[in-house]
């Protein structure tokens, strides 16, 4: 367990932020050239069309947690290779490459303060093997949930995942059951859990903790679904409607409570937590 105070620094985009010549960025939404610095100050949201660029896990911690005071938990958990899985590359080498980049795993967990309220926070990191859920992700989410349970503080998870980590075979499937079981305890104990859905949230993560929140907040335009759009297209042999499996589509179909602009995310989250907080604190 480590306590660290982060220095204030601007949010970082998950993509190609290390290229110093990128003075302008082309918006993937409207195609306009955006001044890099302006985009950074706008939390990686296009000032013209509101397109949300992906940001990494540390950036969400910084965005949500007061003054960057985040007590990271279980940072030393690392993937094992129980199946000794090898496809075109050995799983152990894939892990090694990602770890060498300084990413411990596909989720950061810890405790911190959001607008004055203690919370347990987990943020998934799409950079680490497509944010896939293996045993470490399952174990860290599950321990983070138990911290929320023991300390009776709300749990917030920021989701971003390509699904189960195939290289861990049946163990990765079982993480869906394991994490959902912890959420059952939180639910029974009357402790709030808010799921934040970002681009993309698919597969086994969606079919477990991402869809079990008391409240679901989705960033605009995020891909959220169980089956991937390509698999669906191949199965039904027809083109998918515009906006299929995007946040606004899920809102219309009743799967998320609100679509929230990243620039409003912390404020909305705080209001929601405060609403739920009164009720459950009185019961404890």
């Amino acid at each position, binding site marked *: 367990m480590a306590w660290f105070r982060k220095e204030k620094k601007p949010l970082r985009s998950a993509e190609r932020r290390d290229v110093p010549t990128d003075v302008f960025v082309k918006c993937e939404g409207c195609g306009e050239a955006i001044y890099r610095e302006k985009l950074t100050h706008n939390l990686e949201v296009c000032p013209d069309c509101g397109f949300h660029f992906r940001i990494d896990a540390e950036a969400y911690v910084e965005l949500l947690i007061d003054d960057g005071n985040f007590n990271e938990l279980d940072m030393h958990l690392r993937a094992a290779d129980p199946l000794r*899985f090898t496809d075109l590359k050995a799983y152990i080498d894939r892990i090694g490459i990602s770890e060498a980049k300084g990413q411990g795993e596909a989720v950061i967990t810890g405790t911190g303060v959001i607008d004055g309220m203690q919370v347990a926070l987990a943020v998934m990191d799409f950079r680490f093997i497509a944010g896939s859920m293996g045993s470490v992700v399952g174990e860290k989410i599950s321990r983070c949930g138990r911290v929320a349970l023991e300390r009776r503080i709300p749990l917030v998870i920021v989701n971003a995942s390509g699904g*189960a980590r*195939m290289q861990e*075979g049946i163990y990765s499937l079982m993480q869906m059951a394991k994490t959902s079981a912890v959420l059952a*305890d939180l639910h029974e104990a009357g402790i709030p859990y808010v799921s934040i859905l970002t681009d993309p949230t698919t597969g086994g993560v969606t079919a477990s903790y991402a869809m079990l929140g008391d409240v679901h907040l989705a960033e605009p335009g995020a891909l959220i679904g169980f089956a991937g759009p390509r698999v*669906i297209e191949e199965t039904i042999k027809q083109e998918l409607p515009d906006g299929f499996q995007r946040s606004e589509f899920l809102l219309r179909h009743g799967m998320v409570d609100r679509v929230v602009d990243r620039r409003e995310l912390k404020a909305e989250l705080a209001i929601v937590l405060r609403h739920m907080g009164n009720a459950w604190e009185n019961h404890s």
Partner: protein
Amino acid sequence: MTASPHLEFERDIAEIEERIKNLLSVADGKGIDVTSELDVLRDKLDSLREETYRSLRAIEQVQVARHPRRPYALDYVERCFTDWIEMHGDRSYRDDEAMVGGWARLGGDSVMLIGHQKGRDMKENLRRNFGMPHPEGYRKALRLMRQAEKFGRPVVTLIDTPGAYPGIGAEERGQAEAIAMNLREMARLRTPLVSVVIGEGGSGGALALGVTDRILMLEHSIYSVISPEGCAAILWRSAEHREEAAEALRLTSENLVELGIADEIIQEPQGGAHQDWDGAALTLKETLLRHLTELSGLGTNELLRRRQAKYEGMGAWRENSAAHITGEVSAGT
């Protein structure tokens, strides 16, 4: 496409079966005694079957698990249970025929029986969607599990699905939420739960019936996070590598016991359950009875405590210098 009754690796077996059939018809027509020839052929058939099925490769196990003549959930219901009352619908949208459920009696006692149901022919498969449920199927299952809990009856699930259905309606109606809710509710359902993988245990669609106190697998069933074809398409960038993927995923019943996930393998009749439905059903029934008796001996709190501990320990990871692997005692490395 009509389903081929024989798998490729069964070709020699099929040939001997054909010879026995021919011999019998000749003998019948002419009244000749062919007993000794038949005995020779039958011995040969038995040993060939045993040999073939003893050493199936992973991809062959997958083929057997998907065999078009393999018994499906309702075939076992008919053979293992009495007083079957099928119940329909999720009380919200429609009845999903890819998922069946209802009250049934096993031995003397009532259980809630829920299972994926594949169709035997194309016409039935259109109704049953090849055993791939939509969200309302999972919601029907959950409704029935809650009913079992209410009346203090155990739940038995029979798992046999290629997986959740990748379609527009399934996504619109929230199949991710439906599966997730089953996982959460099954984790704490206050009644014994036993699941049996009888054929294909395909990913999230299978797990939605699989959070249980006991996980049993028929000998030639499989259980996997993704189909070998899907895995090969993603990791090998071509579905043609399904054999390697099937091997790598460790999806056979033997693998699942080794990995500490499945509790027991239920032996199938020689040559697979598709050769002898009654025989397969009898073993299944006896095994289910034994596990339900054991579980009913535990109090509800103890049952839930064990279920919680089991799922808490699921997975394999390293922490500092220690490794945790399901089914193994934590050991320093």
